[in-house]
Structure formats: C-alpha cells, structure tokens
C-alpha cells in the first residue's frame, strides 16, 4: 500500500500560475523518499500539503489510504522536522517533547516513558531541563528529532532539516538519520536541495522541477540512468558532461540521439585500456584542482564545449593538451526532447 | 466556518472600545461643532456660526498663537537639547547611565507633581529660582505672574520634563549606529563635526523623525501645567487650545463652541500626522 498518494493534485498561490499541476504520485510505505529539487520546484509545498499546513487547490491526498480532506494537521499521525527546528523557545526540552504528547492525550506514565526513551536514544538525557536557546545547533536538531520520534507517527516529514548545520555535523547526522530510519521502520519523506543528502539517505529519490516529476527512482538508478538531461545535470558533482553530438567528430551511432553525456568520474586516461567502441576525446586543460583524494580538470575540447574530468589516485597532469577516453557502456544518449534513449549499449552497471 | 469568524471575534472587544471611545467621540465632536448647546436645553443647529465666532475672537487668536509658540519652542528645544544630551551621554558608562536616569525621571512622574514642584520653585517671593538669581545679582523674576514671562516658564517646565525621554531614544539610536562606520570615518580623517552631520545624524534620522512627531502631538495637547499652574493667565498669556476647550466646555457649558475649537485642534494634528507619514515614505532608508 502507498503511504502517501496524490491524485491530480494542483496547488496555486492566490491567482498566480500553479506551482503544482495535476500531479499523480505515490510514495511507498516504509520508504525513505527524498523530494529533491532546486528552490521553487514545489518540493516543500508538496510536503506541507501532506502535513496539512498548506491548502491544496484541487485534487486528493491520501495518507495510509485515507482521504485527508478536512483532516487537521494534528490528526494526521505525522511528525515533522522543520528547517529551523521550530522548537518552542519558552519551553524546556522536556516540555517541547511533551507538548504534542499531552495534546494527543497520551497517558502520563506513557509520556514519561516515551520521553525518557527518546532522550536516551538521541543522547539528550542530560539536557531535558534546558531551554532551546541554551543548546548548540546540533543539540537543537536532536530535540527536533526527539520531538518527532516521541509521537510515534506513521509518517516522518523533514523539511531541509540539516541545512542550518555546519558540514561536519551534517555528515554525522546523515548517518544518524539512516540508523534511525532502519530502526523505526516507518515512512520518511525528506525534502532537500542537496543531492548528497538525497543520494546518501534516500531509498527513493523524486527529482522535481516546476512541480513536475523529472525522475523517480533509486539513488543508483537516478545516478546511472538519469531519465533526462535535467536529472543528469542535477545529480553528481561536478554534474554529467552533456553536449550536442554534432560537436563530436566520431561518436557511436545511436538512433535519434541529439545529446551525449558521460560522468566526469567515468573518464579514464590510460590509453592501453581503450577498447573498440569507446569514445576518445582530446583538448586543452583550462584549470586543474587538486582535492587530495581526487583531481578535477576542466578541459576545452572544442570552442564551445568544456568537459569536466574527475580522476582518483593518479599523478596530476601538467597543463597542456591531453587525450581521454570513456567506455561505451558509460555513455548516455538523449533525444531532441532531452529524454534518455535506451540504446542497449549498457549491460553492466 | 468557525475559522472565518474567529478573527472578527478576536478583534471585536478592541474595536468596540476604540469605536465607542475614540472614533464615535471624534465624529460626535465634529457634529456638535455645528450646534449651539449648553448641555441642558435643546440643541440648535447653527451651521458654521461657531467657527465664524472663533475666527473673529481675539482671545482665540491669542490662544492659537500661544499654542504654536509653546509647540515651536518646546519641541525645538527639547529635541535639540535632547540631541546634545544624547551626544554627551552616548558612551556606555556607569556615570552616563546614572545621569541618563536622572534626566529621565521627570518623564515618568505625574504632571501634577511636576507642576506643583515648579510652581514652588518659580514662586516669585519664596522660590528657589529667584533666590539663586539673587545670589548672582539678578532681580527677582515674576515667573508665573508676568504675562511676558509666564509662557516662557511653562515652556521651560515642559522642556525640562521631556528632554529625558528624547535623550533616551536618541542615545539608543546612536548606540545602534555600527561602530565600523565611525572607524571608517576616522580612517578617512573625518572631523568630528563632519562625522556627526554625515554619519550620526542620517543614521538616527528615523528615530529623530519619530521623536519630532511624538513631541509635536504631546505639545499640541498641552493642558495640565497650564491648568494647574496659571489656569491660562495672566491676561490669557498662557492659555492654550486644550485649556480653552476645557474652559468653554466645562466652565461655560458652550459645548458646540468648545467642539469647534476641538475640530481646529484635530485639523492641526491631522496635518502633523499626514506630514509625518509623507516624510516617512520619502525618507531614505539607511538600514
């Protein structure tokens, strides 16, 4: 059964053009689904419609098979973690967690037990008497999580919960969230603009653009077989190299192909490994970045095309003219409407 | 449906009170200004007669003049002196905090007390002020009895009372000016006067605007010191608009006539407010 189902969902603010139009989408029970996209793509709006914080303009939303029409946010059995955590500043950590439980009329003993458990689980037991303003950013984040967990919801919603943390803490909490997801075994819906978060935590990624689904699939699939150029260029850092096949002198002939693409990290420099059908390109190095475990090159292969190359564990190349190669199975092709063409060249992923 | 009427229910108590005790009275006052009525008998419609009487009344001219004189000097002096005091006290030290507190106290003390204290200080025979003036060889001044001096005395008292508040607001505004602006100015070798006019003054101008409006409204409604200390005298020299409304209304029971003075005051205050918002919308935003 689907945890969340949208039918012909439309959302427009006031009299502006709709942000979401006639969207049909199902989010699988027990999945960690990431709604990914640039700002303004409608991902947060979608999440807030699920939470009931935003009125939809038309269509139907089901949670756990139930129509959510006229169901108050508080009655939807969901928890939400906000970007700024939305902790109640005048309440202690304990009261922050307790507030929702009390409103849900959970019995006193049960409340005490749940708060103790959840505080233990996120490592806040010593901070229950503190006010949010006396906590660090990471601790506040954990209070927000604890508050969400304690309600034992059937659905977790998270709206960019890591964006206010520094890089190190973000990496740590990512793994914490994965652990949490595996332990709780409930549905997570997670909104982010950060592809790393999406790829590392999600079991399903939904890439949105202008309120439309660009690609929905597992992280591997979305990375290896992007459904269109937008997806290909959104995922990966640096993104996939995509350019017009017309700019190539020699290319594998694929019916209807207008664009060719390959990931920077799939490029290799060892000529001896080249096989039949592999693509050979050459150009001048414009810039070289040594990043320790990897080296990035920016190479100009013709006046209008620049290719990003990412290599690992190799000697840095000197500036100048280089030749590089891509295995045939690592090539993607897109048609004139920028959609992926399955050309049968990939048997191994 | 319930959520549709909720906001209206929530604002209802406030709207009812403001409607009944502010909006309705102001409309009623305008209405009354076209009538002749002594509170007892029947009301008689007289058109613009009250205003005509007002325009030809020498006393009213004097009262209007007195009020404007009072407003001009009180607002001007208390804002400028407040600005000076703020410049003097803006550094965040203990002594300054104490002095600022001392200057501010008159603002939170009842006008009744202030009036009596100054009446006593300005007593022409036994007052402290004249005693001190005598020490430096100045003849006693009849602060409150001389028609040429009385208004000045009332102005002094009002300025004394309101400087503290102005200082407080301006000190806060000055402390809100980022320090790096001053550092940049001193790196540019800007003289102190230039720094004041080019940095401090523009940066605190929003607060200054606000203060001027507040002071203007407060000054136009001047009543207590006049009523308690001089009761408008001597020779009508300290009589102001509100005091005149009170007299005509509560002493002579000329309700319509008093209301027409009220209408004049209302128009003056409206002009001030409109001017203020006009300037507010045109002023440059520095923050």
């Amino acid at each position, binding site marked *: 059964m689907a945890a969340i189902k949208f039918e012909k969902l439309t959302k427009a603010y006031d009299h502006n053009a709709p942000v979401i139009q006639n969207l049909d989408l199902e989010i699988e029970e027990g999945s960690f689904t990431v709604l990914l996209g640039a700002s303004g793509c409608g991902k947060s709006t979608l999440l807030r419609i699920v939470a009931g914080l935003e009125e939809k303009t038309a269509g139907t939303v089901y949670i756990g098979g139930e129509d959510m029409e006229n169901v108050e946010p508080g009655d939807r059995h969901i928890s939400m973690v906000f970007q700024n955590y939305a902790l109640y500043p005048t309440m202690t950590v304990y009261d922050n967690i307790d507030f929702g439980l009390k409103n849900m009329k959970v019995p006193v003993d049960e409340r005490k037990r749940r708060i103790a458990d959840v505080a233990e689980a996120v490592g806040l037991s010593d901070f229950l008497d503190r006010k949010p303003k006396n906590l660090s950013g990471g601790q506040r984040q954990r209070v927000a999580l604890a508050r969400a967990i304690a309600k034992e919801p059937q659905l977790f919603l998270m709206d960019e919960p890591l964006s206010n943390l520094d890089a190190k803490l973000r990496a740590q909490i990512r793994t914490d969230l994965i652990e949490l997801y595996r332990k709780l075994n409930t549905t997570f819906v997670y909104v982010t603009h950060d592809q790393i978060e999406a790829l590392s935590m999600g079991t399903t990624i939904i890439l949105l653009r202008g309120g439309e689904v660009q690609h929905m699939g597992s992280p591997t699939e979305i990375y290896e077989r992007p459904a269109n150029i937008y997806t290909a260029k959104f995922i990966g850092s640096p993104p996939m190299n995509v350019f017009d096949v017309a700019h190539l002198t020699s290319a594998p002939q694929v019916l209807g192909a207008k664009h060719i693409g390959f990931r920077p990290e799939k490029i290799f420099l060892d000529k001896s490994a080249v096989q039949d059908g592999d693509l050979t390109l050459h150009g001048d190095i414009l810039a070289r970045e040594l990043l320790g475990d990897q080296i990035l090159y920016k190479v100009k292969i013709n006046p209008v095309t620049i290719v990003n190359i990412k290599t690992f564990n190799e000697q840095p190349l000197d500036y100048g003219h280089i030749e590089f190669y891509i295995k045939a199975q690592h090539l993607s092709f897109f048609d004139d409407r920028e959609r992926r063409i399955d050309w049968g060249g990939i048997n191994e992923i | 449906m319930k959520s549709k009427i909720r906001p209206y229910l929530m604002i209802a*108590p406030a709207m009812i009170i403001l409607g009944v005790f502010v909006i309705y009275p102001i409309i009623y006052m305008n209405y009354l200004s076209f009538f002749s009525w002594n509170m007892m008998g029947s009301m008689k419609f007289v058109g613009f007669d009250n205003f005509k009487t007002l325009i030809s009344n020498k006393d009213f001219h004097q009262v209007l003049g007195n009020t404007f004189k009072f407003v001009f000097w009180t607002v001007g002096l208390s804002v400028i002196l407040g600005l000076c005091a703020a410049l003097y006290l803006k550094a965040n030290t203990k002594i300054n905090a104490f002095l600022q507190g001392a200057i501010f106290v008159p603002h939170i003390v009842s*006008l009744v*007390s202030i009036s009596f204290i100054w009446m006593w200080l300005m007593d022409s025979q036994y007052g402290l002020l004249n005693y001190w003036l005598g020490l430096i060889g100045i003849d006693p001044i009849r602060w409150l009895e001389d028609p040429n001096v009385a208004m000045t005395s009332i102005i002094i008292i009002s300025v004394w009372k309101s400087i503290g508040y102005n200082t407080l607001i301006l000190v806060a505004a000055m402390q809100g000016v980022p320090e790096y602006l001053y550092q940049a100015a001193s790196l540019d070798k800007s003289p102190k006067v230039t720094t004041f006019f080019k940095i401090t003054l523009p940066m605190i101008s929003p607060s200054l605007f606000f203060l001027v409006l507040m002071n203007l409204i407060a000054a136009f409604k001047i009543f207590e010191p006049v009523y308690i200390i001089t009761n408008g005298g001597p020779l009508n020299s300290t009589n102001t608009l509100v005091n005149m409304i009170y007299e005509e209304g509560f002493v002579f029971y000329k309700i319509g006539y008093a209301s027409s003075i009220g209408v004049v005051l209302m128009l003056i205050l409206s002009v001030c407010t409109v001017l203020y918002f006009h300037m507010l919308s045109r002023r440059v935003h520095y923050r």
Partner: protein
Amino acid sequence: MNILKKICKTIVNILLVLIFVTPFYWMFLTAFKTISQTIQMPPLFYVLDPQWSNFSQVFEKIPLLHMFKNSVLISAGILLCQAITVIPAAYAFARYKFAGSKVLFGLTLITMMIPSQLIFLPVYLLLSKLGLINTYASMILPSACSAFAIFMLRQTFMQIPEELVEAARLDKASELKIMLKIMLPIARPTVTTLALLTFISSWNDYFWPLVLTTNDTVRTLPLGISMLKAVDGAVMPYHIIMAGNVLLVIPIIIAFICAQKQIIQAFTYVGEK
C-alpha cells in the same frame, strides 16, 4: 588638555544633576518643613526636625486612602481590560488574513494619533448619557483599549516564525492553546513592557479623572493632590502640597530605582519602533 576636559565634564555632570535632581530634593525637603521654614529667606537646605505632621494634614484634607484605593483599582482595571482587548486583537491582526483587516488595522492606527485631550468633551457627554459618571467604569472604559499596544504587540507576534505555529498545529494544539501556550509566552517581554507603560500612565493620569468626575467617589491620587492647592486660600500651603506630592511620587521613584533597567528599556523599545 585632558585634565581640562575632565574638569569640564565634571562641571557639566554636576550641572545636570542640579537641574534634574534639585527640584525633587526641594520637594522632599519642603514636605518636612514647617510653614514658616518654607518662606524663610535665605532658604533652608536641610531640615533638622522633620514635620511628619504635614503628612497627617494631607490625610485630613483629602480622603487619601480612598483615593489611593481608587488609583490602584482603576490602574489594575485598565491593565486587565487592555489585556482582554489588546492581546486577541494584536494576535488576530498579526496571524490571520481576513476581509477588512487592513482597513480595520488602519483605523486602529489612526486612533493612536487622537489624544484624549481632543475627545474628552464628547466622551464625557457619552458617559453621562450612559449614567456612568462617578463610577469606576467611567474611569476604566475610555482607556480599556490601546491602539498603540495593539500595534506594538502585533509587531512582536509577526516576528515569531510561522513554523512555531505550524509545529504546534502538528502537535494537535488548538488555536487558543497556540495563542496562550506558544505565542504569548514568547511575546512576554513586550507584554511586560506594555503593562509597565500602561500602569505608569494610568497611575499618573490627571486628565481623565479631572474631566470625568464630579465628586470624590472614584477620584484618584493625582487629582486629590491637586485639590490640596485650593484648601487654604491666600497662601499656598506648599509644605502640605509637597507632602502630598511625595506620597504621589514615591511609588514611581521607588519603582524606577528598583527597575531602572526595565523601565528604561521599556521606553527605549517603544521609541525604536
């Protein structure tokens, strides 16, 4: 140069203290003098035998305790009424979009610019038509709402992040609970500030009691003190007036000394809007 500057500063400081503190010192001093000491020349700058009887004379001339009680009751009544009218209105203006909200809020702002000195005549007529003159209601109702307080509190409510309300809604809190348990505690500093300002102004108020009362039933302290003036006719009994004045001023001065920081902050906060 530096020493000269220091000396100048000290002189200015002393002058400031003289100008702003002497009047109050003189008030306290006079309150303890005999009538002959008050008119003694050169004046006495200290008192060796404080005349406590001046205070008992105040009690004889005006019903001081009764007026004190009135002052307390009326100030408290105004505070209570303003809490009831201002808080929900500020909340509604801050949080809800509803038809006419802009017009009504604009109207509220306009009332902020109308001083009581402008409308006291019609208000008196209204209250007397309602038969409320010389009742507590007449002293409280005209001040039962403050447009200014609505404005300030609305600002505060609007600065509270929307997410907090949303989090509370997800926590199954009712609208009333969100207002009372989440929003109001966050706005507490503003509420305290406004309460302080309202209390000071209603405690000091002379104008409404003057125009709205015709006997002592609900008259307050400031009016009582002003009535000391009329008692003796020819010579102003300044020692008694000042004794009354001391009684009126002391609560405010004590409050100021105890809570100087809060009071200063309250007034500054308001001015910075």
